[in-house]
């Protein structure tokens, strides 16, 4: 029982971080139709830019976060403006290849400045552990769940209710109609990339705090794919369920069975889900009338 509780909390926290990272991916896919293979690298850039501001430049934590957000927004907007906008109208495969290239470039930039050794960062979230139902649970993991949950709720709400969120959904639905009601499609694209980068920043920094600042963040980011494909690529609730599922399954397999198996189990789950539901668990059937 004690192991179970520990694994449950760790799995939930990793799942929540994953869901947050994946939500950025979904935002980009929904609004712009681009499958962004560089989402994991956005986590990396987020974690390292915060690390630079907080540890290297020794800024106070609030300021460091602001710097991180600023860098994330700039990276997101620049990537959209100079890398993806010229690709408008190209085939999906070309656009995917561009984002794969972008992923290599982004991780190379990080390596160029910081090398491949893990960096240690003073803890931001409170350390220590509490005992829940006999299991020892790290406090920072609980905080990670809270932070991700709050950000997830805010982003979901923004997307569903706010004026800009509705405009994003409108663009995703029908770009031509969106333009004729006065929505700037370019701005919505830039906004989606900026939001995706910011959600990746928060996920990256939270992940770096519960683990370390290192290149491995990219590998964690790779798990975004099983999460979003399971969720159905464009479903926000699907992403959250997918993230938590993958996080939990990975931890339980790692804890009860074999850490090596845990590396591949997300993909096994993915294949099984797709066998039963080819559009993902929450893959919406589009309403269409002819």
């Amino acid at each position, binding site marked *: 029982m004690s192991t179970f509780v520990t694994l449950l909390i760790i799995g939930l926290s990793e799942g929540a971080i994953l869901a947050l990272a994946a939500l950025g991916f979904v935002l980009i896919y929904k609004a712009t139709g681009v499958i962004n293979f560089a989402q994991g690298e956005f986590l990396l850039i987020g974690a390292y830019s915060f690390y630079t501001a907080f540890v290297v430049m020794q800024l106070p934590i609030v300021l460091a976060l602001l710097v991180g957000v600023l860098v994330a927004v700039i990276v997101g907007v620049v990537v959209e403006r100079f890398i993806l906008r010229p690709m408008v109208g190209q085939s999906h495969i070309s656009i995917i290849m561009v984002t794969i290239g972008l992923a290599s470039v982004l991780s190379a930039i990080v390596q160029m400045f910081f090398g491949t050794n893990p960096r240690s960062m003073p803890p931001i979230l409170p350390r220590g552990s509490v005992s829940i139902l006999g299991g020892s649970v790290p406090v920072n993991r609980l905080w990670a769940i809270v932070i991700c949950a709050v950000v997830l709720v805010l982003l979901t709400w*923004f997307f569903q209710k706010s004026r800009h969120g509705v405009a994003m959904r409108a663009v995703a639905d029908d770009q031509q109609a969106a333009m004729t009601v006065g929505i700037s499609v370019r701005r919505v694209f830039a906004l989606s990339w900026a939001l995706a980068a910011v959600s990746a920043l928060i996920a990256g920094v939270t992940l770096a705090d519960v683990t370390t600042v290192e290149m491995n963040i990219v590998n964690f980011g790779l798990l975004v794919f099983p999460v979003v494909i399971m969720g159905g690529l464009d479903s926000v609730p699907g992403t959250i369920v997918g993230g938590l599922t993958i996080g939990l399954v990975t931890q339980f397999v790692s804890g009860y069975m074999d850490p090596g198996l845990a590396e591949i189990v997300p993909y096994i789950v993915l294949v099984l889900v797709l066998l039963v539901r080819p559009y993902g668990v929450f893959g919406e059937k589009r309403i269409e009338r002819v």
Partner: protein
Amino acid sequence: MPPGQPLLQVDDLTLRFGGVTALADVNMTVESGTIHAIIGPNGAGKSSLLNCISGLYRPTSGSVVLRYVADDVARGGGLAADPGAASGTAVADVADLDVRERALTSLPPNRVARLGVARSFQNIELFDQLTVLENMMLGRHVHMKHNVLTSMLWFGPARRQEIAHREIVEEVIDLLKLQAHRQKPVGMLSYGIQKRVELGRALAMQPSLLLLDEPMAGMNAEEKEDLARYVLDVHELAGVSIVLIEHDMNVVMDISNRVTVLDFGRVIGDGTPREVMDNPRVIEAYLGAGVAS
């Protein structure tokens, strides 16, 4: 714009797609306060003309110029939530309206929309996944002012603005009798109601010029009559000028003040409905050469 003034001026508009000439030296003037019909056989270039006006097509040559009163655009953008803009308009002298001209041919569609030009499409372009209400609220998008951060926080000014916009949308919903469908995703609704929602979304923009591309296409006589009445109501209540593409001659004759006839991308007739009906070139285009002589 005061009625009777030229609102939209189309000069020598030509549009080519490769070797196909969709529009050739089209000239047309839409006067403020009128319902201006564009008719013509299939493929005459009617929709292409609307697309050039609303910025979706870039014409090969020629110009489209919109006249607007600068204060109208500012006031529409301000609403109750922005008292600064309202006090600005009060100062302006009524007799001396600040009328401006803007060439639309170099603007993207979203900028054209911001100048007060709204439109509907022949093959309904609604946001299928969104509800009727959300679709209509998107019509208010051009008038909303708060930025990303305040809309994320929503409380306060952003919320008050949202409520003011909602009131206008509710008026449009009442006018078009869409109350029962407010919360339904548009994709679930029938064709006739979708057409009405699209008209409503355009109306929610409170445009000075409304472009309607076959709003009655595919409807039965009764639905057509209903929609014609909505168009007339809109014209009278909102005082909006309308450019209307329509195939049904009875409807055109009934509701329009002026008619422009296109055939193979050229203007072959222009005038009151009566004049156009008696124009031999128009009769020829519609019924064939033998009948006209």
